[in-house]
């Protein structure tokens, strides 16, 4: 890994190239104002993640990792590939930016996990968002603050020490004039890479970051207005249903789909083990899938009662250490106590079980595929989709609305792939829930 870091560090001259690329993309996307991008340090942040990115991902990772934009309309937008699955980073990352820019949390707009809008990110996992993305956004916001102060100093031909910044305005203390961030940047298109030495607000002076603030979209959550993937609807959208295997490791020997195909408005896709249907409504999709009489070849699997012993007997060699593992004290000394208790506890063998089931909505338009799905790795799913459908990555957009939890169980994008397959065959948007 050190070699990899050195290799990337040796490419510092490419930083400027990356900045230029992001500048073009940024201005095209956002118009004027002030923008801050990340360059090199993202590579380090990514390499330090437990789940190392693939070589293809590394190639892009040296470019940008998060963006901050302050528009002429005073809107402050943060672009990050991190996603919200209930850990509340939509709020906590906004706090970090709000602190450095001296604005209320509510004035920060977070754009998260949309592969067309945000810079590459390996994924949201391993409790890395706060320790890795937090400091990056903090430096970006501090860089933007310094840029704003520079602009203001030029505007008033004033010394920076005579300027103060509060509530989205720069105040000239000499003449009590003030300009909003937007007024200050009007007609300009300023882009800078995040400054490593940006003057950060010391933690003991924090007023917003590190404090308990209400969830920024809390109102939408308690009124049922927040739109999860399964709540999305597109014109002409079909409902998808997949023929699921009855057991782990089962393979499909035969499936007669004639009856399903004969149903009005039903599209059937049959490719190897994959059989799925799309129909105008959920009931029709359920009816169609039920009309398929599959023959599955299954192999014996351990029952619930046997699973503990099965896992114990078939476990791979235990790895020593692991993340967060510490060793202190002495087991022998502890067991030498006057009184010892011995008990064995079993818990069920369960997976992540997020409350929101895996879901996806896929739409093909003029050869471009857009998929809304709850995933911890929007860019990983973009890769998977591009590979599966032999598309350039630019032709695939993955959008991740704030999702009903994941717990590590939504790294992959099966639902996205399935919905896209059905939508391609049906030539209509398909939602899979």
């Amino acid at each position, binding site marked *: 890994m050190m070699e990899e870091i050195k290799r990337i560090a040796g490419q510092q001259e490419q930083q400027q190239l990356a900045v230029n690329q992001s500048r073009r993309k940024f201005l095209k996307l956002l118009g004027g104002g002030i923008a801050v991008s990340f360059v090199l340090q993202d590579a380090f942040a990514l390499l330090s993640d437990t789940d190392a990115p693939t070589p293809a991902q590394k190639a892009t990772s040296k470019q940008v990792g998060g963006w901050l934009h302050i528009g002429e309309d005073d809107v402050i937008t943060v672009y990050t590939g991190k996603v919200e*699955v*209930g*850990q*509340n980073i939509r709020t906590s990352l906004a706090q970090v930016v709000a602190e450095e820019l001296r604005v209320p949390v509510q004035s920060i707009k977070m754009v998260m996990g949309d592969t067309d809008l945000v810079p590459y990110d390996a994924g949201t996992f391993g409790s890395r968002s706060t320790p890795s993305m937090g400091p990056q956004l903090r430096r970006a916001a501090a860089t933007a603050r310094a840029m704003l102060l520079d602009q203001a100093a030029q505007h008033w031909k004033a010394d920076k020490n005579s300027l103060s910044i509060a509530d989205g305005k720069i105040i000239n203390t000499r003449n009590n004039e003030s300009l909003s961030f937007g007024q200050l940047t009007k007609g300009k298109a300023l882009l800078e890479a995040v400054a490593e030495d940006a003057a950060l607000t010391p933690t003991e002076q924090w007023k917003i970051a590190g404090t308990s603030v*209400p*969830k920024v979209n*809390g*109102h939408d*959550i*308690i*009124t*049922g*207005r*927040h*739109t*999860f993937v*399964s*709540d999305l*609807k597109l014109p002409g959208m079909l*409902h998808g249903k997949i023929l699921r295997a009855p057991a782990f490791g089962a393979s499909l020997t035969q499936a007669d789909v004639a009856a399903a195909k004969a149903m009005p408005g039903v599209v059937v896709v049959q490719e190897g083990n994959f059989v799925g249907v799309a129909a105008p*409504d*959920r*009931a029709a999709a359920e009816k169609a899938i039920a009309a398929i009489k599959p023959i599955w070849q299954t192999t014996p699997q351990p029952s619930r009662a046997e699973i503990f012993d099965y896992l114990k007997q078939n476990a791979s060699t235990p790895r020593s250490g692991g993340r967060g593992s510490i060793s202190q004290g002495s087991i022998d000394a502890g067991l030498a106590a006057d009184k010892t208790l011995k008990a064995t506890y079993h818990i069920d063998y369960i997976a992540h*079980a*997020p*409350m*929101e*089931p895996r879901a996806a909505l896929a739409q093909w338009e003029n050869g471009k595929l857009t998929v809304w799905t709850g995933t911890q790795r929007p860019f990983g799913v973009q890769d998977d989709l591009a590979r599966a459908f032999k598309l350039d990555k630019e032709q695939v957009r993955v959008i991740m609305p*704030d*999702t*009903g*939890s994941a*717990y590590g169980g939504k790294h992959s994008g099966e639902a996205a792939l399935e919905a896209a397959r059905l939508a391609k065959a049906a030539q209509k948007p398909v939602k899979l*829930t």
Partner: protein
Amino acid sequence: MELHINSVKRTVGSAPDTSLLQVLRDELDLTGSKYGCGEGQCGACTVLLDGVAVRSCRVPVEGAQNKQITTIEGLEQDGKLHPVQEAFLKVDVFQCGYCAPGMIMAAVGLLQQNAQPSEEQIISAMNGNICRCGTYPRIVRAIKEAAKA
């Protein structure tokens, strides 16, 4: 088929054995109620039928005829949040929020039956609503807040 949802009469065309949840979400675009397990085990789909909390994924829509159906969308009145919503917002209960609509409807149902529940009664009434993020202590706190209001 006619339904009375959030004090509004709605005519629906789904088959009588379709689940109430499916009718609400797919036919009427009332997507606040959530599909979690589809087996009545998680509570994400909880709505009120004549004031009683039920799992709408297990109620055939015909069984909801001639009853007052209340969903999360019906709690706000004239732009004002229901006291239970106010309390859940004040306590800032949720993380991912997928369980929120069902949780709040179950809490409204509880407080309609028992305006001053004890902690044990709250836990017992809310036991069938699952929050995988584990916000249970705040849920109990919010319901106590709402009972005070």
